[in-house]
């Protein structure tokens, strides 16, 4: 307190030295856990010498041998006590005691295998159950997705009976999605999402990242605002105008040093230039992708977001069935009504498609197979509204 400021640096250097010393001592104490006997012998020798020297001195000052010995033992304290204290300093007493207890426990357990196996099983089941419950509670309660009115959000799948051997639902076709969005009246908004991998090059090491192509309204639909910059606008959802990208907070921190100037910068993805227009909030977490896709794809969170900008190849009833569709229901519409609405649109579309004979790639009876109307998905507080479609 009274020390002048010039001392403070020296003080820190000194502290560091002390820490190093303490660590060194700790290491030596760990090594002190071994080779007990040799070390004990050395100490006995040393104490013995000490005792003898003391006696020699007393003898010189005129005591008798007996007196000298008695005096020495009285003055120096018990050898056993010293050994005990020395051992405590040499090793780590708590650790040694714990090891002893462990060995004892192991012996006892070997003696009673029946009891041991019951105890182990009970523990295993208990731990397993707790873990399972925690992982549910964690996703539902502790880390709920922070979307506005998450209960109104639904995932739409397609059902193709002839492909049912691949799974009950199929990911969504971009053309179907466009029709749904245009013609259904049950949803406030609908959004399409596809997962792509991109190579980020140009800034530091090249890196392969998981990215999502999303309809321009996705973030608005989820009720999520970027922390920097802006979300996509509608015209960016067209091929050619879609060279814009939004970063996840983690990626922004990791690759761009959390630089706010990143907005407006151009980055290279798969050799093409993209303009960074936004950075998402740190708390933003997206739905587990395997919850959106029936055919589970990578489970990581997308780190980059770009506009969907469906191309002509994708906007084709025979195009890829490879996308996830999320919709926000209107408040007054029930999931069952929405399903009927979707299927009505889907059927109209199908009959229109039928005018094009080449579309009958799955010559099945056109019975519409509706699944149970809605299954509550506990993990995300949304419903999976399967949309029946037939070919």
């Amino acid at each position, binding site marked *: 307190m009274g020390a002048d400021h010039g001392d403070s640096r020296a003080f820190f250097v000194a502290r560091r030295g002390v820490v190093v010393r303490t660590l060194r001592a700790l290491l030596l104490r760990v090594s002190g856990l071994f080779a007990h006997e040799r070390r004990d012998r050395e100490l006995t020798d040393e104490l013995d010498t000490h005792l003898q020297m003391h006696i020699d001195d007393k003898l010189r000052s005129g005591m008798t041998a007996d007196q000298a010995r008695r005096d020495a033992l009285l003055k120096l304290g018990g050898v056993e006590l*010293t050994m005990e204290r020395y051992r405590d300093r040499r090793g780590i007493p708590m650790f040694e005691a714990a090891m002893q207890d462990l060995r004892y426990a192991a012996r006892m357990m070997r003696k009673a295998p029946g009891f041991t196996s019951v105890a182990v099983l009970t523990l295993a089941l208990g731990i397993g159950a707790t873990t399972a419950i925690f992982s549910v509670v964690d996703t539902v309660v502790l880390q709920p997705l922070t979307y506005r009115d998450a209960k109104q959000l639904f995932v739409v799948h397609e059902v193709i009976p002839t492909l049912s051997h691949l799974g009950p639902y199929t990911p969504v076709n971009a053309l179907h999605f466009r029709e749904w969005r245009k013609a259904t009246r049950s949803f406030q908004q609908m959004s399409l999402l596809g997962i792509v991998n991109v190579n980020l090059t140009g800034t530091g090491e090249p890196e392969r990242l998981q990215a999502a192509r999303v309809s321009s309204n996705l973030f608005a639909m989820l009720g999520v605002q970027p922390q920097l910059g802006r979300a996509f606008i509608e015209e960016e959802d067209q091929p050619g105008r879609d060279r814009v990208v939004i970063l996840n907070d983690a990626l922004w921190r990791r690759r761009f040093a959390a630089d706010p100037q990143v907005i407006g910068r151009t980055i290279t993805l798969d050799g093409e230039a993209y303009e960074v227009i936004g950075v998402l909030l740190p708390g933003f977490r997206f739905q587990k992708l395997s919850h959106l896709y029936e055919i589970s794809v990578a489970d990581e969170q997308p780190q980059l977001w770009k506009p969907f900008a469906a191309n002509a190849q994708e906007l084709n009833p025979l195009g890829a069935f490879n996308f996830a569709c999320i919709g926000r229901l209107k408040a007054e519409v029930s999931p069952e009504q929405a399903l009927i609405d979707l299927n009505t649109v889907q059927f109209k579309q199908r009959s229109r498609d039928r005018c094009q004979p080449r579309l009958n790639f799955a010559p099945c009876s056109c019975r519409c197979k509706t699944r149970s109307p809605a299954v509550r998905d506990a993990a995300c507080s949304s419903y999976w509204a399967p949309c029946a479609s037939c070919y």
Partner: protein
Amino acid sequence: MATKQDVWQGTLALMILKTLETLGPQHGYGIARRIEQTSGNLLLVNYGTLYPALLKLEQEGYIASAWGVSDNNRRAKYYRLTRAGKKQIERGAKEWEQTTEILARFLSPGEASS
């Protein structure tokens, strides 16, 4: 006659280091005697305190030890000061001076009233 005092652990370490600095390499008995003498026989160093303290200093690297032979031909373990030990003396002495100085201020009657 004043009763003999046991030594505090913290100060004992400094006393040991200082003793080794003065005497050069020394065995445990020599260190104990020297400390007792220097204190005017007010301190009593029994080996229950001395040897654990020596071990601690050795573990911390302030002293090093080796077996040797004493003047009257006894095998004894000799302790010597290391470079880190020398620095530690300076540091310890400074800290100690500061502590006593602070305490002295509290104990001196003039300061206590102001």
